[in-house]
């Protein structure tokens, strides 16, 4: 039972308990009002597309991996003319457009190599077994996961045969390094009202933007049980839901709209997901699991712009990906056009246990002094 409801059921009404009882892997913060329940704190340390990947990609991408922006640019009939007129290989549109920002002005001449597998990862987001259109989704094809469940992950069709976002790809590796090194990427998950970490039918979950860095031990593993402060200034990055723990797996209900901080390929922005859900195996100090929901296409594409500097090393083509993402979009149909505005996406996530601290006036953000030490007058 969630914290507040459990407290009410027991007739226990404690006030906000700063100063907190430290229990296994968490700290009781403002969300916890029941002194008999526990809190689990998690900080995300890894976030990858959940893709079906064989080592040589031949089973899922039999035609090979997709050509990137540069290769398509060179193959474009008027590439030399555009380059001389506008001054860059990546000015590929008739007005010198970069495909990252004006993807529909550019047409890739090289053939598209589509994902060819029916196996995949994710959750059944639309609740159907056939992917038919519903008031909240567009018609799409399902994947089957290892447990035989039919799941939604249309983003895998966009990136499944793109080298940069596959395991070991430049974009995936770069972004995950940024999770470790840049506090702008800090996402915290606080589970309160936990009576039993193995099985609890009702727990409360809050997603926060955090403020702090992650630390690794000499072997390169993230160190668990350190403190992470909540960013109380940016409340738009706080989302709440309920969930349950079944045999040690945290299963959350969907968060209708969740905004998550995102620092990706050297640019800070955000991720906006609809119906975001988590399933996390809580065992041990370094839990892992999956997050899935519908990526909001507009916000997602505006973060893809960050990749303008990595279209070369990451080997992808924005013109193709934009079209593919809209072609395969399966969530939140526009009531006027019927075109879906979001796309089902599943991510493999990693986390470590952490003590989540809710700053108060006695625990200020300490931002300004740190900033001032590196600032140049503007």
């Amino acid at each position, binding site marked *: 039972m969630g914290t507040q409801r459990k407290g009410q059921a027991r007739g226990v009404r404690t006030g906000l308990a700063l100063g907190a009882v430290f229990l296994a892997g968490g700290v009781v913060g403002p969300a916890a009002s029941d002194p008999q329940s526990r809190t689990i704190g998690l900080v995300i340390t890894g976030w990858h597309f959940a893709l079906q990947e064989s080592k040589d990609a031949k089973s899922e991408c039999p035609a090979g991996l997709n050509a990137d922006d540069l290769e398509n640019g060179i193959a474009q009939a008027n590439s030399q003319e555009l380059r*001389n007129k506008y*001054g860059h290989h990546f000015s590929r549109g008739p*007005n010198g457009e970069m495909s990252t920002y004006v993807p529909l*002005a550019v047409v890739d001449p090289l053939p598209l190599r589509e994902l060819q597998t029916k196996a995949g990862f994710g959750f059944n987001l639309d609740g159907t077994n056939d992917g038919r259109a519903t008031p909240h989704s567009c018609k799409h094809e399902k994947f089957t996961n290892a447990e035989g469940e039919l799941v939604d992950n249309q983003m895998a069709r966009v990136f499944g045969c793109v080298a940069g976002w596959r395991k070991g790809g430049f974009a995936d590796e770069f972004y995950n390094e940024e999770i470790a090194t840049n506090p702008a990427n800090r996402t915290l998950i606080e589970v309160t009202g936990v009576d039993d970490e193995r099985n609890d039918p009702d727990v409360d979950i809050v997603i926060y933007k955090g403020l702090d860095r992650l630390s690794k031990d000499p072997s390169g593993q993230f160190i668990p049980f350190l403190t992470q402060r909540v960013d109380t200034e*940016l409340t738009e*990055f706080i989302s709440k839901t309920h969930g349950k723990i079944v045999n040690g797996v945290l299963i959350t209900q969907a968060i209708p709209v969740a905004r998550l901080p995102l620092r990706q390929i050297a640019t800070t922005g955000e991720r906006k997901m609809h119906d975001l859900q988590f399933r996390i195996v809580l065992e041990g100090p370094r839990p892992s699991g999956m997050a899935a929901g519908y990526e909001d296409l507009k*916000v997602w594409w505006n973060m893809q712009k960050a990749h*303008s500097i990595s279209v070369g090393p990451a080997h992808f083509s924005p013109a193709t990906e934009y079209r593919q993402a809209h072609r395969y979009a399966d969530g939140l149909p526009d009531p006027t056009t019927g075109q879906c505005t979001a796309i089902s996406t599943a991510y493999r996530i990693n986390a470590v246990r952490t003590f989540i601290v809710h700053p108060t006036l006695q625990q200020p953000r300490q931002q300004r002094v740190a900033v001032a030490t590196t600032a140049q007058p503007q």
Partner: protein
Amino acid sequence: MIRDPKSDTRRSAPILAALLGGVAMFGAAGAAASAADQAPARVEITEVGPVFATSSGMTLYNWAADAATPGISKCTNAHYQIQSEANYGNFPLPAPATRKTCAEKWPPFLASADAKATGDWSLIHRPDGAMQWAFQGRPLYASAKDHRPGDVNGEPVNVRDRAGWHVAKAPLDFPPGFKLVRLPEGLVLATEDGRPAYVRRGGRIQRTSSASTELLQPIAAPGLGHVTGKWSIVDGAAGSRQYAFDGEALYVLPVGLSETDIKEAGWTSAIFRRAAPLPPQIHTRPTILGHIYTAADGKSLYVLSCAELGAPDALPCDDPGDAAVYWSALCGAPAECSRRWRPYLAPANARPSGEWTIEEVSDPPFLDAAGATYPPGTPRVKAWAYRGKPLYTFVDDDVPGETLGHAIQYWNRSAFTVVNTPGEYRDN
């Protein structure tokens, strides 16, 4: 080119003496008076700090590229046609017919034929035979971006502007261990590690042993220290000596604490120069990118910055009349650019303040992607600008605090960025 009529050291001395005397009133004197009297430039206290300026008050700048070649200016009147980029080779520069030279964008600060070097001030020979002033070996330039005395429009707005041009900062006659940091309230005295100094709000401190010093530490002064201008050394608690500015003793927070604790406790930052007030139409708010400037409805405001870093002269390309591709690469045809990036219009009664001005903006920004921006005949609107750069809202930002237009960039050349408030420097 800027040929300063007061750059003749014999004629400029009385004026400079008066100017530096004024600076001393603010506590920011230059070098010793005898040397300062002969300096060819004056010192202006701007929003970004004390800077060297021409006799008419126009801000002077240095270029980082000159640092590697002391006594030589790399900013010339050469017309470049080709740029190069690692991994991608050489390319023609866009819109070559309208491309300006470095010396046109950054006019050198010229000296008269009979000018003489003095102290830190030296003279360098330009390729065309003219003489240019340099301070501590670094050539000085004005900026074509500046239109009025006190403008600092050549100073970068965002860390993504890497062309290497910065205002020529005038040396501060501060006691050792002090510098200036820029915060929303203005230029603030700070310790060398960047911690702002504080004074007690609303009153002078003669001798302090109050409980408040448990949090704020007095900034200790040496027993035999010597200070000038508005600086003084006062008796602190327990017989210690403490720096004071404008008669008020200075304190600093211990490392790791912020001002959040003390603002309500009767302390305020030690302001060297208060910031010009924000225009009523300009607001601020916290975002994922830090505190930024917004429109009155909370929507994020953006500027376009541009430099041709692949060219030897790294020329700015965000001025009216520069190549249009630095827009079209990011937003396409003129109408689409106009749809995506809306100039933030200034009302008819809007008045400039500090770095905030009202500028005529071409909307759409160009007509031919292979041509130049601001072509004759395009409609003009009056829009707010920051450091001379017009401010825009972005079409995809639906709610206050969204920053979806940030870092839309044409490689290392043009980029739309939010504008952080002072002290919110971040590597965004």
